C-alpha cells in the first residue's frame, strides 16, 4: 500500500467508511476523504441521489466508480439531500484532485445534529486509517 500521508483537515468530521462531513447548524456537506480517493485511484463516475431523497445514517446514498472498483458511499448522519454536486457528472476527477472542495458530493439537512458529534475527529480518523493499514 502507498504510504503517502493523507490530508485530513481538522475542521471536518469523518466516518469509518471514509466520508467527510462539514456541518454548519443543521446543514452539512458530504464527500469522500483524500485517503479514500487515493485508495480508489482515478474516479471515472459518481452516482449521486436526487434532491429530496432521505437516508438513514450508514445507508448507501450513491457510489463511486474508479478504474479499479465500484464503492458504495454511505450517509454519515441521517438527513435529507438538499443539493447535489452535478458537476461531478462531467468532471469526476474533481474527487481525486480536490476531495474536500470541488469534489464534494451532496449537501444535506441533518435530522439530528447530535449525530455529528458522534463522528470521528480528524485525529481519530488518522489513527483509524493507520490501524487499517497495519492490519
Amino acid at each position, binding site marked *: 500500500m502507498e504510504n503517502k500521508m493523507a490530508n485530513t483537515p481538522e475542521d471536518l468530521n469523518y466516518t469509518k467508511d471514509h466520508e467527510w462531513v462539514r456541518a454548519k447548524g443543521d446543514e452539512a456537506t458530504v464527500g469522500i476523504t483524500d485517503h479514500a480517493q487515493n485508495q480508489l485511484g482515478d474516479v471515472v463516475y459518481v*452516482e449521486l441521489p436526487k434532491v429530496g431523497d432521505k437516508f438513514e445514517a450508514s445507508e448507501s446514498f450513491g457510489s463511486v466508480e474508479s478504474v479499479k472498483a*465500484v464503492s458504495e458511499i454511505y450517509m454519515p448522519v441521517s438527513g435529507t439531500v438538499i443539493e447535489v454536486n452535478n458537476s461531478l457528472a462531467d468532471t469526476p476527477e474533481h474527487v481525486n484532485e480536490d476531495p474536500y472542495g470541488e469534489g464534494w458530493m451532496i449537501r444535506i439537512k441533518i435530522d439530528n445534529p447530535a449525530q455529528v458529534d458522534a463522528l470521528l475527529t480528524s485525529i481519530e480518523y488518522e489513527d483509524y486509517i493507520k490501524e487499517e493499514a497495519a492490519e
Partner: protein
Amino acid sequence: MRYIPNSPDERSSMLADLGLARIEDLFDQIPQQLRLKEPIGIGHPMSEPELLDYFRDLASRNATDYQSFLGAGAYSHFIPVIIDSLISRAEFFTAYTPYQPELSQGTLQYTYEFQTMICQLTGMEVANASLYDGSTAVAEAVLMAHRVTRRDKFIIADSLHPHYRAVIDTYTRNLGLAIGTANHTEAGTLDATSLEISKETAALVVQSPNFFGCIEDLASLADAAHEAGALLIVAIAEPMSLGVLKPPGAFGADIVAGETQSFGIPLSYGGPYCGLFATREKFVRQMPGRLVGEAYDEQGRRGYVLTLSTREQHVRREKATSNICTNQGLFALMATIYLSVMGKRGVQEVARQNLQKAHYAASQIGSLDGYSLRFVAPFFNEFVVRTPRPVTEVMKTLLEKKIIGGVALKRYYPEMTDSILVCVTETVKKQAIEKLVDALSEI
C-alpha cells in the same frame, strides 16, 4: 457408461460425514406418498442403430408440407445457408461465450458488430451484446426505466405481445411496481391523447408493429410520455419491419427492446431466440447486459473488450443492473451474419416483399364475402381477419387443406372470438396466398 463422478467409497465416506446410512436418508423430508417407488417409465435402453431408427420414425411424422401463416412473435423468414456453415466453426461453436480479450477477439469483434447493427436498425446510440429473447429484453427495459426515473408506475399497451406481458408480470410481481394497461382503439393502435400518463409514470411500453400487426404512431406516444417526464419503451417483435419503417430512435424512443429471431435464427418451436436492447447513451450506466467496446492496446492496435462491467452482477452483486450476466452469443452471431450477408439493401428488399405480400393477401381476404379486416391502422406483415364462421371451424377446415391459417386471437383476447392473426412473410408464394383465399371463400 456411467456419468457418476464419485466412487462408491467416496459416497460412503460423504454419507458417514453427514451421519447418514443410505442416500435415501437425504430425502427423509419428502413424504412417502410423494415418492416414486418404481423405475421412471422411459422404456428400455436402446442401441445406437435402434436409437437412429427411433428418431427417423419420429422425424417422418413431422408435418413438412403445410403452408403456415403463423407469426405472432416468431417469423418464418428465409435463412441463408452460410449462417450454419459459419457458426459451426469451432472458434464460435462453444457451449459458453468466451469474453477474455486475450483470446476472444473474434467473438468480441462480432459482438461489437452486432451492437453496431442494432444501433443502426433501431436508431439508438448504444446497444448491448443481446439478452435471452424479446420478452426478457422488454422486462429488463421496464426495470431499467424504474431505475432511471425512480418512478413506480407503468402503462403497458394491451397490444404488447401477451407472452412479453406475462414475463413483465413475472419480473415485477414482487417489486412493488404498478403495472397499468392501455387499451387499443378500434383502429388497432393506441391513442396518445387518452393515455393516463402522470408525473408518477416511469414509462409507457408499446410494441410496433404491435401484436395485431398495426404500426403505432410513435411520435405522438413519445411526446405524451416525455411531457410527463416518463420514458417511451418500444418493443419490437418483428425487427424485419425496420427494413421499411423509420427507426423508433427517430421518434424519440428512450429504450428499444425486442427480438432478433427474424434475422437468420430458426423458429425451433419457439426458442432459443435472441433479445435486442438499445438505449440512449445518457442511460448507458443503467443498462442491463454485456457491452463490448472498442479499445486500443499499448501498440495502438484496435481491439475489443467488455466495457462498463461495473453495471454487472459479477462485479456489483446485488447492485447490478440485471441478474443476467451473459448473452445469446451464438444467436447474436447468426443475426450478425444474416445482416452482413443481406446488407442494407437486402434487408430493405426482404421487408418490402413482406409488406407487399401481406398487403396483397389482406386485400384479397378482405374483399371476400363475410370476411373483413378488424383494424384500419397501417400494418407490416401481419393483420387481423374477422371470419363469418366460428374461428375453430375455419381453422379446422383450413388444416384439412394443409393450411395453418394463423393464430386464433381469442386465446389471448377472449372478446376476439371471430378473429385470426394472419402473417405473410417473403417465404409465402403467391400461389399459397391464392390457395388460402380460395379455401376461405369456400367456408
